[in-house]
């Protein structure tokens, strides 16, 4: 069943429209009982952050996200899956990433969206650099060990 579904993967500097992305997966269909969306936004770190600059490895980013999305489609009975990741200069309050997972039932949609985000954080070639309001030297965001630990959970759960 999942073999026929192709994920929609987009890597873009432009913003995305979450409602439009949901509609893209659901319009004209009557077999979908659950749509889970995850949106990742840029926060201002208590007013200290002016912008996040997101660098990426274009060819590999598309390939890696498509491969992770394919894994999710193989693991859960989804009717549709969308992943959008932005790059470039992103201001507090703006969108960074979107995952939309649609399925007949909620459990598959929730789990697939969470799985996608955990894998994206660890394996998709994007790097965030912080630009501060104070004008102090900007620095690269460090990877969190809790993000790596989140992956182990999926490897332990029975498929």
């Amino acid at each position, binding site marked *: 069943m999942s073999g026929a579904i192709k994920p929609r993967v987009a890597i873009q500097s432009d913003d995305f429209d979450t409602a439009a992305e949901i509609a893209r997966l659901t319009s004209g269909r009557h077999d979908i009982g659950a749509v889970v969306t995850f949106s990742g936004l840029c926060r201002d770190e208590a007013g200290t952050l002016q912008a996040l600059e997101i660098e*990426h*490895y274009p060819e*590999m980013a598309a390939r890696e996200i498509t491969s992770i999305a394919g894994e999710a489609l193989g693991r859960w009975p989804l009717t549709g899956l969308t992943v959008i990741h932005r790059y470039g200069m992103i201001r507090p309050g703006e969108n960074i*990433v979107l995952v939309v997972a649609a399925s007949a039932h909620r459990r598959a949609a929730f789990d697939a969206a969470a799985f996608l985000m955990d894998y994206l*954080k*660890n394996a*998709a*070639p994007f*790097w965030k650099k912080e630009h501060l309001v104070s004008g102090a030297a900007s620095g690269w965001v460090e*990877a969190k060990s809790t993000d790596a630990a989140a992956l182990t959970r999926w490897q332990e759960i029975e498929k």
Partner: protein
Amino acid sequence: MSVKLVYFAWVRERIGKGEEIIDLAPSIVTVGDLLSHLKTRGEEYEAALEYQDVIRVAINQEHVDHKTPIGGAHEIALFPPMTGG
């Protein structure tokens, strides 16, 4: 063997360029050998690759570990742990 190297984030900043093509001696077999070799190319490389174990590597746009042989690679990317999402 000549190979294209691409660098990202602070690896790119410390080396001072985004990509380059270099010739590799046959004695450079694995990713680990390549990293050790690059560190001899100057202090900017030494600064970028100081903590060699944290450097992530992709060959032909696929993640690999430091023990992987680099034969057949046309593009090798070096970068810090990823912070997307």
